[in-house]
């Protein structure tokens, strides 16, 4: 599929600098004295817009450079399951609009990777499952429709854990994606392809989905910004359901501003999704001031609660100190830091796996081989189901369907599903109380940095445990952003660690403001993976 792409061209559009890491655990905040002076990361979306409007370059030029980078890096990374044949055509249309002096949408010429569980009309959308191999939906997801209406260009479909079930992207039925910071490591998951593609600058921004951390954890592993909006902020129409009450479409960018602007583009009530919210969508962009305009204590008085349960045993020391450094940085910016305790914190993980598995066992019933997708010829009806589903689904998916089916069975419902829902209410209460005392809460995005491919493949419980930082946020339906805050030792040049900021429901604006200022003031903070530097 990449054979049609143009030969490599200059990558001059990108600020490609390697992060300077020391031998030991390094956090960006603490390394500010030793690191060379680097300018803060720039929004790809705004940069693109500026260069298109000034005539400095064309959408086709930009698209070609990205396609060539894909061509170069994809054999190692395997971020994409499909690259669109229409990227250049779409870019030409943008250029034609510019030539005619027509109005440009805010995403004009912006190259967007889309997780493969989000429906794109006429383009393969498989959720990385054999059962949907070659499936091309007859409609665009609402988020995709909005992106296209605003001029955005879908670059292709990114790899993921099958149906979003996994934390490493190894559960894809088709390929294993590598982490751009260290090709022997996982990019995280389930939106690993979308995170790695942004990290490797194969696209400017990307869409993922987050059911229990599937945007935030890979953002942390890949050193990019991952934004999980409030449940209901973005329409789920066209998102292949994993766990309907937890699923949200989220955004990846190399800056907070990019993730925020992409979120703005896809947010809002949708009459095709009864769970989407009618809450107003504020204009986030005004939050993204450039550093020159910051006051000396730009976050003065912002109350930040650091969740103490997230820094206990089981969290890598490097991650812990990076988080503490990040907290210090926030303090330096004027934030008031306090420790908060969420007593229900540890209950979230089991509750999450019960609820998510239960809902998935139901949501995946439609893949029966009758109307679309993988079908195995069979002599009788039950055989048709057994074989189509048996061959179509991977091991992780089958395991979760079995767990969920069990949890919903007569006689077990009260002990599992109902109990898990009660825990969920408890978690919501604890978060609500903590967010009444604080503007935002912070925690690590994951207990560790990216681990080796295959390391946890045979130990699902160890993998599930890695979701401890993120699942509670889904259970509570809250917005959260993960942004790189430092590096820990590992790989050729260190591994990124993400900081998670959790906000009150529908208060993405505050998260983006704090996240943006944090990012722009983090010294030596160019989180560009070594792979790219080598290519450059």
């Amino acid at each position, binding site marked *: 599929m990449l054979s049609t792409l143009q030969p490599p061209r200059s990558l001059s559009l990108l600020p490609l600098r390697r992060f300077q890491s020391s031998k030991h655990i390094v956090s960006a905040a603490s390394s500010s004295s030793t690191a060379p002076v680097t300018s803060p990361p720039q929004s790809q979306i705004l940069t693109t817009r500026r260069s298109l409007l000034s005539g400095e370059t064309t959408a086709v030029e930009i698209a070609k450079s990205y396609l060539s980078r894909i061509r170069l890096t994809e054999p190692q990374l395997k971020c994409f399951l499909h690259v669109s044949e229409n990227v250049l055509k779409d870019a030409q249309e943008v250029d034609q609009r510019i030539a005619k002096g027509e109005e440009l949408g805010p995403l004009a010429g912006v190259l967007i990777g889309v997780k493969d569980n989000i429906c794109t009309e006429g383009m393969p959308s498989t*959720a990385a499952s054999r059962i949907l191999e070659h499936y091309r939906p007859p409609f665009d997801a609402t988020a995709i429709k909005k992106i296209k209406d605003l001029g955005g260009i879908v670059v292709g479909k990114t790899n993921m854990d099958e149906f979003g079930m996994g934390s490493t992207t190894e559960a894809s039925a088709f390929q294993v994606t590598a982490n751009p910071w260290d090709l022997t490591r996982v990019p995280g998951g389930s939106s690993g392809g979308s995170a790695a593609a942004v990290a490797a600058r194969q696209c400017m921004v990307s869409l993922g989905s987050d059911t229990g951390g599937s945007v935030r954890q890979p953002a942390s592993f890949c050193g990019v910004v991952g934004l999980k909006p409030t449940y209901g902020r973005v329409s789920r129409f066209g998102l292949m359901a994993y766990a309907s009450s937890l699923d949200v479409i989220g955004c990846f960018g190399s800056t907070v501003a990019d993730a925020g602007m992409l979120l703005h583009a896809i947010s809002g009530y949708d009459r095709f999704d*009864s769970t989407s919210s009618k809450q107003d969508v504020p204009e986030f962009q005004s939050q993204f001031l450039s550093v020159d305009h910051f006051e000396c204590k730009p976050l003065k008085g912002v109350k930040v609660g650091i969740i103490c349960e997230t820094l206990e045993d089981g969290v890598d020391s490097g991650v812990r100190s990076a988080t503490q450094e990040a907290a210090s940085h926030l303090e330096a910016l004027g934030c008031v830091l306090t420790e908060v305790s969420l007593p229900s914190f540890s209950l979230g993980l089991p509750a999450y796996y019960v609820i998510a598995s239960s809902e998935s066992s139901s949501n995946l019933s439609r893949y029966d081989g009758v109307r679309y997708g993988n079908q195995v010829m069979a002599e009788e*009806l039950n055989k048709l189901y057994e074989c189509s589903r048996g061959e179509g689904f991977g091991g992780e998916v089958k395991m979760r369907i079995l767990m969920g089916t069990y949890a919903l069975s007569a006689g077990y419902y009260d002990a599992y599903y109902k109990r898990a829902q009660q825990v969920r209410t408890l978690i919501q209460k604890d978060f609500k109380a903590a967010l009444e005392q604080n503007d935002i809460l912070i925690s690590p995005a994951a207990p560790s940095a990216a681990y080796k491919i295959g390391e946890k493949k045979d130990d699902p419980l160890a993998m599930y445990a890695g979701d401890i930082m993120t699942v509670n946020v889904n259970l509570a339906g809250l917005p959260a952003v993960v942004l790189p805050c430092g590096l820990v030792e590992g790989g050729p040049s260190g591994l990124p660690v993400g900081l998670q900021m959790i906000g009150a429901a529908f208060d993405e604006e505050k998260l983006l403001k704090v996240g943006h200022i944090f990012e722009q003031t983090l010294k030596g903070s160019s989180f560009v993976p070594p792979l790219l530097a080598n290519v450059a």
Partner: protein
Amino acid sequence: MSTTLLRTIQLNQFSLLGTALIRRRSNNVSVRCCGSQTATTHEAKQTPPSRVAPKNHKSNKLDEILRDYEAVIGIETHVQLSTLTKAFCSCSNNYGSYPNTSICPVCMGLPGALPVLNSKVVEFGVRLGLALNCELSLKSKFDRKQYFYPDLPKGYQISQFDIPIASGGYVDLDIPLEFGGGHRRFGITRVHMEEDAGKSLHSDTEDYSQVDLNRAGVPLLEIVSEPDMRSGVEAAEYACEMQRIARYLGVSNGNMQEGSLRCDVNISIRPIGQAEFGTKVEIKNLNAFSAMSRAIDFEISRQALLYDQGKADQIVTETRLWDEGAQKTVTMRKKEGLADYRYFPEPDLPEVILTQEYVDSIRASLPELPEAKRRRYEAMGLGMQDVLFLANDVSVAEYFDAVIGKGAEVKLAANWIMGDIAAYLKNEKLSINDMKLTTQELAELIAAIKDGTISGKIGKEILFELLAKGGTVKGMIKEKDLVQITDPAEIEKMVIKVVSENQKQLEQYRSGKTKLQGYFAGQVMKMSKGKANPGLLNKILLEKLNAKD
């Protein structure tokens, strides 16, 4: 679940016209759906509920056995709602479309598609709930009922499980005199909203099956009765009343043949005096009220005989089908334990919240319902047979109400409607709404006869004329010069003429053959072109015939 055998399924990805072909090898036909296989009928015409046929003759021995047992019958009724669009998507809801032409990503269960509730479904649920005297849940929710079947696109049916929209009601009805008469009240356990499945169509050669998803996602209200019925007649009358109420409310056309009203019957019997219920058997495939009555009576006999022969253990929990040809029930599938549908709350739909004002506004908009109509007609002095006839069909009842509203005498209006008009409609296969005779004209016709402007005989002629061509009573009388002759002098003239022209008959009459009075009356009526007032005519005629001149 079923014994359907599959060989291949032909797949047409994204072709909206594609039907999945499921080949079958054996004769074991899966019968979850029993809809007709060719869907060509358009425009559902309402046929009035047919009367239940009388019981089959039974041997005295069986009657004796039956005397010792009591049947306990509960009914689940699925009412297909006549909303313009489906329950959770904007596909049009029309019966009889070409297969798979009224489908979309939502009702096909495509990945990523989400349901959005049609508010009409809630409105109809509230209407029916109120009409069945139920308690409404101001806060209810949807749940998923999960099972696999090719005509169930999502692998689950969106339904309501533990919190139905309405529950705890009852329905009142009158048993027709020919079935023993009497008033009954049957409990309603619950009414809940859900979606229909598609249809599996099995080929005549029985080597493949197809799926038509036009019906998938069509809204249904399921009404569950208390186990209050005791006979086939009671069950059929209950079902009839459900149809009547649905039609009165305008929530469904209630046609059983199209599957718009489907009844599943649960039946058990127990020795009279025993408190606990016997083993419950379910009967499906009942697509007429008469079939329902006969199927239940058959099943009662079957179970009673088994009891009597000491083979009660052969009555097992199972689903049986009514075989119309053989006039008996046959085993469809035995239930292996209780089916586990793994219900859980539908996360794609918010709770259904009703405000008291909304419920009140719907209550205020309810039409007069069958039971209220029957009681009103009864109070007006009509006999039960007339009451049941007139209240049976909402259109007939509305017509009747309009006619008497225009001042027509109740009994006369009832007689005309139930007599000549009903016969005409039956012959012409018309509904009362298609009739050219307006309520205004029928009222005038009745008035014109009553005040003697025209005779009853002329009235009948005019009626058929108006039925066929329309027009007004006044216009017809004028045009055809049909005003009754009530002038005694004029009638006398005609009588004298007839008598004088029939001297031979006069002699015979006077010699005792008084039957000939009819002959003379006929001749006079003929001369008056039917307009002579019959009373006056006969009075004057008798005077003349008996005059000793």
